[in-house]
């Protein structure tokens, strides 16, 4: 890391970018601390790539500013920004060797030969590509290509590294392995990472902070824990992890919030300020938070239902309960021989419960459930 280009924060101020009718990025603001691993998470077409391209300088915002270390770089061309990108499909130069690909940036910067060689060796070593330096990209496996792309960006010691779904093209096993590697690397070099992904698990595993996007807007920003455990809207709750949704009217507020849904089920939640008595709220309960009642019946959130289906996932089991009033409830249990649920059979009437802290009260965000979402959901279910 050289002196001037050291750590710095990246700030987006109310950045908007439209393509014709489409508002690809709509008033996005966020701030990334130096050395942070910051993820942009969202469904396809939500504007993640566009946001990244605005930071890299491939697109110009219609309004708003992009600041790096406090300096406005909104109008700077890409080659003048101390930012580098790892492209979605790597965009390796097919006509250049690994070495020449990785050295490309330094050659542009007219770095002296000896330093170039030194940094090249160092970087190739870091990503374990020394042996492959004279190969061409198409002679490399997916994982190796990915490492070349990473090396090509890292060697320039950028202040911020942008990564656009860098692992999307890899298969499951390799993706898992590369995730770990990426994380370790980021911790070691200490560069700020802006990481785009539509894989919630990946975002949760890797990030220091996550911004969940939809339709060009940032819906929620926070640590992985915040995003998963305290989603603010239904969209976020649904997109990040699986959920059982309830909708009902607040019967008690204050210290303990109690909500009754249409089927008469009462759900106890931890207190939230916007849940006023009589208002309608949505509640999300994660399948893994629901536990079989074992021994003494709990005081709250005791639910009884019939086991309709067990889905065997190997390490996990999904248990589908039919509650009174026709609602479905899904539980997820680890596949352990000692788990109480392992004795359940389809057709059994069983009791389950969950901690009031696990009842997530959401603002009703019909705004985000616009027509297209509804169509898409209908489609994916039908």
């Amino acid at each position: 890391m050289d002196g001037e280009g050291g750590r710095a924060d990246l700030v987006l101020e109310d950045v908007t970018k439209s393509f014709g009718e489409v508002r690809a990025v709509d008033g996005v603001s966020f701030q990334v601390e130096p050395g942070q691993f910051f993820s942009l998470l969202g469904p396809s077409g939500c504007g993640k790539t566009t946001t990244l391209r605005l930071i890299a300088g491939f697109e110009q915002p219609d309004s708003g500013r992009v600041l790096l270390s406090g300096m406005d770089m909104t109008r700077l061309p890409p080659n003048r920004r101390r930012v580098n990108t790892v492209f979605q499909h790597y965009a390796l130069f097919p006509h250049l060797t690994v070495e020449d690909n990785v050295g490309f940036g330094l050659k542009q910067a007219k770095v002296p030969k000896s330093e170039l060689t030194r940094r090249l060796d160092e970087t190739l070593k870091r990503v374990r590509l020394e042996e492959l330096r004279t190969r061409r990209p198409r002679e490399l496996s997916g994982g190796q290509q990915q490492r070349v792309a990473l090396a090509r960006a890292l060697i320039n010691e950028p202040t911020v590294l942008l990564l656009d779904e860098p692992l999307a093209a890899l298969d499951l096993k390799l993706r898992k392995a590369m995730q770990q590697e990426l994380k370790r690397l980021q911790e070691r070099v200490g560069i700020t990472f802006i990481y785009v992904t539509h894989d919630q698990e990946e975002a949760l595993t890797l990030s220091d902070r996550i911004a969940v996007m939809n339709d060009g807007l940032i819906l929620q920003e926070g640590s992985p824990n915040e995003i998963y455990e305290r989603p603010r809207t239904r969209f976020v709750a649904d997109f990040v992890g699986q959920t059982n949704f309830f909708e009902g009217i607040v019967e008690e507020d204050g210290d303990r919030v109690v909500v009754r849904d249409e089927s008469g089920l009462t759900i106890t939640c931890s207190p939230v300020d916007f849940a006023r008595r009589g208002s309608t709220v949505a509640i999300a309960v994660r399948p893994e938070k629901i536990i079989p009642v074992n021994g003494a019946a709990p005081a709250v959130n005791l639910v009884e239902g019939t086991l309709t289906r067990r889905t065997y996932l190997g390490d996990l089991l999904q248990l589908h309960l039919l509650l009174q009033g026709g609602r479905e409830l899904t539980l997820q249990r680890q596949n352990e021989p000692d788990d109480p649920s392992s004795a359940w059979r389809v057709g059994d009437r069983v009791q389950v419960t969950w901690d009031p802290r696990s009842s997530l009260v959401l603002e009703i965000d019909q705004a985000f459930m616009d027509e297209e979402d509804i169509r898409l959901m209908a489609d994916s279910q039908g």
Partner: protein
Amino acid sequence: MNLAASNRTVNAGLKSHAALVYAFLYLPILIVVIYAFNDSRLVQIWHGFSTRWFGEAWRDDTLRNAFRISLITATLNAVIATILGTAAGLALRNVGRKTRSAFDMFMYTTLIVPEIVIAIASLLFFVTLGLPLGPVAIVITHSVFNTSVVGLIVRARLAGVDRSLEEASTDLGATRWGTFYQVTLPQLFPAVLAGALLAFTFSFDDVVLSSFVSGVGSTTLPVEIFSQIRFGLSPKVNVVAVVTLSLTIVAIVTAQALLRREARRVV
């Protein structure tokens, strides 16, 4: 019928058809090659084996001159067409729909309008404006058509070139020119080469356009051969055919080798 047997019948049918097509394609070439070694003063009558027409052809100033003119005009034409076509192909990526379709229309019409029509239109153009007929006219007339050929090839190739490669280059600090030179051009090279070769061949082979707009001392090889065919054939034509054929094969093989080497480097 048994699965394998029916497969075999179809394969055999396709194979023998293909063999016939190859015969169809190569029979004429074979004949010309054979007749180049005909001793006869007449083209069509076999008199025995001889290589004397090779000597005669070599000593024939008219043929040598025509060959030279053809080489020069075809090369100049290829240079112009390659530059104009490549530039246009590149620019077409960045223009609006309307401009693009208007330009497309130009490119396609130059290919669609029959050669004979272009030939006479060009002739009328040069005559009406009092411009001289001759090598320059040939080069210009050829290059119009060939610009489209190169333009379309380059554009097709560009469609397959990932824009993000160029973005990656600027992202890594390269200037616009640096990006063009270091990334775009190498990607484009096979297409440009193919386009240039095609432009050259089309021009080198052209008889219609050339025969209408040629002037003093600008008789190209095809025009010369054509007028010989029309006015009295000399067996030297067969020799010319064999020589150009050999040159072409050498050229193609070299180009293929080059392209393959490029291909190994590029793409």
